[in-house]
């Protein structure tokens, strides 16, 4: 491990490129999250009805229907064949995310993401232990469970507890006690499980991940030869296991992060002082040689400590 790994995450990039550049995707992401939320709030707050509805289903400019494909699938499994409007909306959303990366929903749109990011920040500040770290496939089990319960109860099962809808609909239509679900997710992530909700359990994220499994937009460790093992990318990545195969790959291995768990948040691009990462498309075949002096030891111990 490198001495730089002991520096605060991103410090080198800040010194080298300035604070703004070292946070550009984070800032863009927050703006994007704010943008999507504001679109929905323009109506109820200012009477500007460009967008009606919420993330589960909406109508934009009175013409463009959008529907959450995961909710649509649950509805079908529960035994209801939705009307054409909802189906068209679901297809539009599904195709969009299949192209730009399913979990772009997570890092650029989902209103729970700022909550779990804040929880992670608090978790680090408090120096908490990792806590419960379920296996990587757990969220797929949760996803299967949600579909099974939908089928058995004949309802859109996840909507009874989904913290995303609780928060988003709550802000737009009235909250009631729905905030308790959001607080629960926050506390869970701070005290019980590092990156527990979005990183291990949320079936919505799992669904969108599968949806974008073959997405065009990807992050690539194109300049991996320049990596100096500072470990900052592992520290900021909400799904750090996705980095290893690309960054530590040998010459012949693709530098592109192909895991569908990657949320395309771009934080690795931000914090890397060596400019290793960049957004690209999945078929980018530019050769990316591995670092020649790469010690072939397992990188994981350093990675997990840094994160």
């Amino acid at each position, binding site marked *: 491990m490198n001495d730089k790994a002991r520096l605060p995450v991103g410090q080198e990039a800040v010194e080298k490129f300035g604070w703004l550049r070292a946070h550009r995707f984070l800032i863009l992401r927050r703006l994007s999250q704010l943008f999507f939320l504001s679109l929905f709030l323009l109506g109820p707050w200012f009477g500007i009805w460009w967008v*009606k509805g919420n993330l589960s289903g909406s109508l934009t400019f009175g013409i463009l229907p959008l529907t959450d494909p995961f909710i649509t699938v649950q509805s079908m499994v529960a035994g209801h064949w*939705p009307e054409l409007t909802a189906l068209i909306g679901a297809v539009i959303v599904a195709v969009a995310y299949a192209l730009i990366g399913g979990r772009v929903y997570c890092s650029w749109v989902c209103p729970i993401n700022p909550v779990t990011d804040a929880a992670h920040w608090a978790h680090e500040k408090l120096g908490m232990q990792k806590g419960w770290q379920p296996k990587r496939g757990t969220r797929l089990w949760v996803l299967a469970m949600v579909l099974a319960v939908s089928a058995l109860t004949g309802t859109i099962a996840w909507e009874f507890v989904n913290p995303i809808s609780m928060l988003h609909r709550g802000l737009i239509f009235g909250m009631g006690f729905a905030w308790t679900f959001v607080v629960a997710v926050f506390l869970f992530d701070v005290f019980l499980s590092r990156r527990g909700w979005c990183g291990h359990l949320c079936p919505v994220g799992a669904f969108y991940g599968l949806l974008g499994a073959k997405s065009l937009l990807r992050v690539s460790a194109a300049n991996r030869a320049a990596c100096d093992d500072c470990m900052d990318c592992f520290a900021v990545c909400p799904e750090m296991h996705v980095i290893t195969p690309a960054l530590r790959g040998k010459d012949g291995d693709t530098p592109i992060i192909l895991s569908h768990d990657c949320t395309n948040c771009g934080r690795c691009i931000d914090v890397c002082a060596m400019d290793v990462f960049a957004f690209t498309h999945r078929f980018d075949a530019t050769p990316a040689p591995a670092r020649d002096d790469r010690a072939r030891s397992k990188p994981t111990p350093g990675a997990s400590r840094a994160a």
Partner: protein
Amino acid sequence: MSAAKRINSPIDRRRFLKDSARGLAGCAVAGMGLAWLISDARALPAEALRPPGALPEDDFLAACIRCGLCVRDCPYDTLKLAELGEDGPATGTPFFTARDVPCEMCDDIPCVAACPTGALDKGLTNIDDARMGTAVLVDEEHCLNALGLRCDVCYRVCPVIDEAITLELQHNPRSGHHAIFMPTVHADACTGCGKCEKSCVLPEAAIKVLPARLARAEAAEHYRLGWEEKEKAGGPLVEGITDLPDRLPGPGTDNLETPGGFEPAFKVPGARP
């Protein structure tokens, strides 16, 4: 690394199986919790009415994605999405409370038009066919009309006046010589809009819209009403039955059909005529 590559030794295989069993068990427990929560949350309180055209409650929860587009397009702010812990229906589903804001029965039914999923059935094209519930005069002891006064408000406001609700004349036994104009709901025409409940002048409405499951009885499958069957058949159902003259009350009663009445064959000795 693919899963197939990872499972190459018996130890790995055992670990894989153990992990899978864990995942399965964990999800089974979580799933049961979720299913229990759902069964608890799906009970619809009696005073919460679904929008016009809503599918039966069981189908509704499979269809409604809780987007609130129906709420947005209701011009009278009748509809509301249920809030967790404050309203009774499943969180986020649309409903209205008749006593707060009733449904104004819009001709173009914008709420149904707005619904993207079909949770509000587009088959409903005439708002008079909506069946959001059924009005019931629940308290004849307080209803002013039932007490013999002329309030009539519920009757006057009904959008389907004289079909869904009528005033039925009855004798007023208290005064002995007045009429009672009893508000009477006819379920085959009542849409359940709740205008009557909303406008009932009493502090607590005497007429209320209830879900059909509470408001209506159901006749047993095998019941037949003789007079209806007779009319359908155009004559008596069993041939050769002699219809004997009905025995009418005796003299001295107000038997209008046979004044003087039926003369009994046996006279009680000493009885007055």
